[in-house]
């Protein structure tokens, strides 16, 4: 199909486009770097920043920058963030130079100490000055390290969140849960580093891998939009017979995932599935269905999939999301909605869409099964469109056919459709990232938003979970839970077979437990249709 050609193009593009650097700050940061180096990442440069020369020397990073040559004179900061900040200020020029010509920076830092807490926000801002996307992976100190340290860590985190585009926060205490209680302390720390390494790898893969449905930076930002919240991150891969199931189970088993229980609270969930060429659509569907059981119905799923020959027989699943803590989540929930509303506001332009709509409709109907879900949506959309220009939902529906057309009708409507959808998708991001990022985003995310909104040929079947734009939007118009699910419930009720038959057990003593006759086939009692 067309998609395949485009993918091979994309691959080259991506490789050329994004230059990734991984920066480790302070002791914890350089430990994480070592781990990342050990795990091996291609085409990625490692930069180590530290005040402590000894530690810096032993680092495996390709580039090392000593902070505070004169302030700390090769010693550590002694847990003083102020000192860390001054030290970093001193090396400002050098750091800036290191970030020249870089597309994306991963900032690995252990917060709570001096060097890390003090310099991380500054480093993040320097990297951003150079036009790079900054993804910070911060580890919070253990509880037993004392209140002071965690206070410092929290302050630094707040600063970092202002500077970096995305902050993924790992809680060391949580990390402790992932190692068996008898494991040595080095193993516990190693597992934390391993975790960071895995996240870096996963995220960088998200952007560098050729994607059938690509995950863009905006998706990531969306998934992690709850500032100051817990980041849930899960990654699993498997190549067994039951690989999809296994991969998902592993992903959910990650300590930050809490077996998927936390997922239920997430509002935006980013899911990326990568696999070898042998990965089937069916597998993807199974996986998403299964994952859907863990996810709230109203949650928006940011879905991406990639085929990578290097994966061989393996299938990998990455799940990234964040949830607020209790009431913070409530507050945040409200904010993004308000942020959304301005998005429809510029909508008057796309209002013309009803015009192209009828034009495209016949075309689309001709196009394979995809017309099916569309028909489902349109009758709803049209009545709303006509009477109410004020209706907020309108641009949403208006866009949907557009993006579909973008996918299916290719060249003509392409530029227009893309522009719009990009604008729409990018909006929430700009709220989180700042305008300057927008350009870089477009580079990076290249084709992505369009693809994300409109299922590529791959997602033809569109199981309900796949329909990203749709489930998210009803939330906009109706605050309470009312989702799309309420409208077309496809579960078909079957008529109960007249006299309930018990087959072989007809003449034997019935087994009745909790009021149910267990001799009657379960599927009959539950009204499940069997062909």
């Amino acid at each position, binding site marked *: 199909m067309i998609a395949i050609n485009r993918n091979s193009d994309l691959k080259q593009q991506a490789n050329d486009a994004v230059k990734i650097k991984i920066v480790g700050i302070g002791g914890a940061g350089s430990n994480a770097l070592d781990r990342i180096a050990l795990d091996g990442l291609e085409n990625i440069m490692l930069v180590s920043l530290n005040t402590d020369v000894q530690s810096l020397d032993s680092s495996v990073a390709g580039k090392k920058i000593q902070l505070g040559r004169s302030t700390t004179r090769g010693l550590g900061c002694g847990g003083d963030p102020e000192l860390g900040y001054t030290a970093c200020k001193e090396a400002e020029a050098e750091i800036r130079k290191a970030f020249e010509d870089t597309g994306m920076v991963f900032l690995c830092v252990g917060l709570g100490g001096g060097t890390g807490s003090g310099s991380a926000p500054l480093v993040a801002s320097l990297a951003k000055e150079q036009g790079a996307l900054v993804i910070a992976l911060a580890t919070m100190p253990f509880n037993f390290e004392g209140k002071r340290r965690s206070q410092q860590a929290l302050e630094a985190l707040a600063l970092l969140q202002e500077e970096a585009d995305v902050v993924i926060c790992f809680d060391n205490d949580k990390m402790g849960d992932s190692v068996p209680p008898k494991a040595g302390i080095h193993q516990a720390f190693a597992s934390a580093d391993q975790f960071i390494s895995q996240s870096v790898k996963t995220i960088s893969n998200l952007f560098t891998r050729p994607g059938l449905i690509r995950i863009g930076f905006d998706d990531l930002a969306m998934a992690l939009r709850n500032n100051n919240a817990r980041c849930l991150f899960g990654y699993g891969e498997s190549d067994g017979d039951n690989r999809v199931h296994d991969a998902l189970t592993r992903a959910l088993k990650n300590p930050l995932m809490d077996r998927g229980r936390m997922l239920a609270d997430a509002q935006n969930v980013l899911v990326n599935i990568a696999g070898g060429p042998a990965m089937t659509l069916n597998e993807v569907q199974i996986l998403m269905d299964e994952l859907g059981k863990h996810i709230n119905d109203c949650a928006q799923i940011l879905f991406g999939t990639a085929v990578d020959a290097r994966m061989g027989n393996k299938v990998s699943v990455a799940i990234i999301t964040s949830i607020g803590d209790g009431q913070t989540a409530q507050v945040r929930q409200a904010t993004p909605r308000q942020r959304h509303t301005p998005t429809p506001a510029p909508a008057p332009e796309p209002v013309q869409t009803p015009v192209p709509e009828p034009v495209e409709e016949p075309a689309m109907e001709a196009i394979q099964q995809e017309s099916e879900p569309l028909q489902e949506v349109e009758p709803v959309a049209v009545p709303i469109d006509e009477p109410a220009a004020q209706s907020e939902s309108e641009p949403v529906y208006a866009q949907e056919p557009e993006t579909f057309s973008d996918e299916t009708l290719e060249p003509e409507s392409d530029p227009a459709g893309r522009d719009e959808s990009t604008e729409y998708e990018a909006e929430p991001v700009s709220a989180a990232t700042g305008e300057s990022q927008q350009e870089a985003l477009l580079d990076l995310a290249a084709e992505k938003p369009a693809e994300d909104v409109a299922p590529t040929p791959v997602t033809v079947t569109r199981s309900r979970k796949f329909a990203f734009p749709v489930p998210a939007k009803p939330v906009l118009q109706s605050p309470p839970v009312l989702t799309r699910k309420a409208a077309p419930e496809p579960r078909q009720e079957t008529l109960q077979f007249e006299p309930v*038959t018990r*087959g072989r*057990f007809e003449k034997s003593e019935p*087994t009745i437990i909790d009021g149910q006759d*267990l001799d009657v086939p*379960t*599927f009959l009692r539950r009204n499940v249709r*069997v062909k």
Partner: protein
Amino acid sequence: MGNDSLIVGLEIGTSKICVVVGETMDDGTVSIIGVGQAPSRGVRKGEIVDFDTAQKCVREALVDAEEKGDVTIENVFLAITGSHISSFNNRGGVNIKEEQEEIGEADCALVQASAKQVSLPSPNIFIHSILQHYYIDGQEGILNPLGFIGERLEADFHIIHGVRNRIQNTIRCVKELDIIVEDVVFNPVATAQVVLNQNQKNLGALVLDIGGGTTDYIVYVDGVVKKSGVLAVGGDHINNDISMGLRIPLARAEKLKIDEGSAILGNNLPGETVFLKDDHGFVGKEIERETLNMIIHMRMRELFEMLKRMLEEEDYLELLGAGIFLTGGTSLLRGINHLATEVFEAIPVHLTHAQTIAGVTAVSSNPQFSTAIGLIKYAQALQMGRPVGLLSRLKKRIFGRSR
């Protein structure tokens, strides 16, 4: 031959009748020397519904075992099950006479008798009363009260009872073949003997013997039986479901289940089908795999969920340290352990068969024979009078059976 060291276990199952002949060695181990089996007819949900047919099948199986083991079977231990069997825990107590120095065996027997001073439904009789713990003057956790000094001796018992006539019927079926029934044993009690080791019993374990007509379960916590019972749902139900759902004959349904069925969903491509051959080997009917598996899945999931609910009610679920042990013929179903893991979440699930038995290993490694082999282990423990575990200590004093 009348060899004293011969022990024969007989299980009249819903789908087949198993006879296992074991021989006790001088060192106390048991070796299996012969196995007989015959497909079972006239049995539903673990109970005989057609006496003559069932008797024929039992004879067939016994003859088979005699031939294979080159022995003459004169007496057997008989496993029984059926939805009429149920259980509860009860505490009995006696006051020790003041002039008495220390607690003796007679007192233990009295305690047990007092524990059975409960009113069973009138048609029911005791099958087992299994000791859990002794208490002396309220002091907990005494395993063996003999020789202790105290004023009041109490003990917790797990009491298993069933309907007299139904048990009698099963016994009669064997007796009429001129075979002496030495003892009747509730299925899971026997099964647990060979499926669990003492360590697992101490950690806490659930044995699920999913057979043809029934699912027998027994819960061990702290090394003692806490709960046992029967759910009259088994592999037969799956066959019946498939037969009704796909509209194919029962026998065909069973074969389809064994050859192609699985308890987990989502492993098949949509539209992937199996061809059902007719009697002449021609392709008859085409059946979608997912549909087949859905039928199986729903039935098994319901079964596991029912068990889970039941255990949850009494808070046994978190006490199962060693996990859940699946055995019995239906445990051979593909994916059943995955499904169980899914339902029981954090609890480890194991597929097991008879352990710690020498002899024909092909037999002991088949979960279908777990119960029959368990009978031998049970009988051996009785004969040796040697405590193998807390449970078996009490074995030699089994009351309340009737012949």
